[in-house]
């Protein structure tokens, strides 16, 4: 249970910086096709922004942006997003995670692979973000033995 910092510089700086960190994390996730980046890196940056808020504003106030109980369910949701794309390709008659079998109209096979990779990266980023925050909450939660 981290408590709120008394330093106004730290509080204001964290509140100013966090949206930009999250915006850059989204950029890293979506831009993973064209440059360095992807789900793991973007998810780690999203987690870092929220852990930054946990450390500076304290656990109670930062519950408003990401609740403690969301960690594990969101991680499972990310894994399900990944897994269900593979199952969808099975339903459409391909092998597991063979994205070009998805029968979406108006897309070539390469573009189907493109969007398949995008969905997979989004699932990875959701899982990584929420699991990292959940592990941080677990490790910092019981230290003061309330």
């Amino acid at each position: 249970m981290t408590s709120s910092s008394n330093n106004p510089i730290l509080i204001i700086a964290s509140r100013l910086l966090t949206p930009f960190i999250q915006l850059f994390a989204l950029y890293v996730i979506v831009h993973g096709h064209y440059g360095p980046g992807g789900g793991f890196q973007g998810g780690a940056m999203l987690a870092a922004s929220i852990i930054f808020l946990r450390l500076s504003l304290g656990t109670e106030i930062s519950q408003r942006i990401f609740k403690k109980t969301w960690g594990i369910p969101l991680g499972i949701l990310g894994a399900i997003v990944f897994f269900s794309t593979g199952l969808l390709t099975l339903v459409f008659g391909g092998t597991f995670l063979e994205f070009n079998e998805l029968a979406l109209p108006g897309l070539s096979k390469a573009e189907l692979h493109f969007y398949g990779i995008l969905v997979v990266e989004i699932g990875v980023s959701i899982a990584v973000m929420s699991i990292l925050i959940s592990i941080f909450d677990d490790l910092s939660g019981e230290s003061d033995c309330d």
Partner: protein
Amino acid sequence: MKKAPLIILILFGVTLLYFTSWLPNLGELQSLQHRERSPIGSQVAAAYYIKFAGQDAASPNVVTVILADYRSFDTLGEIIVILTAGIVCCLILRKNL
């Protein structure tokens, strides 16, 4: 006694630098891992990835295409490992689930 770690460190650094000079240059086509054919004559996977990743998935980043498309089973396993780590942390450390 204090000098032994320093000597070992310097020896280690010199060894690393010496063997770094053996590494092939970046993008050198004749080096072993960039060839299209292995010494036995079979096709090397890396050459295929570099050639066709852009066409197969319409994205210029080869690393992303390998991680999330050609080797997506591996990424799925990584996600499950992370999920397991989170769940185990939750089960061990959290008092009121």
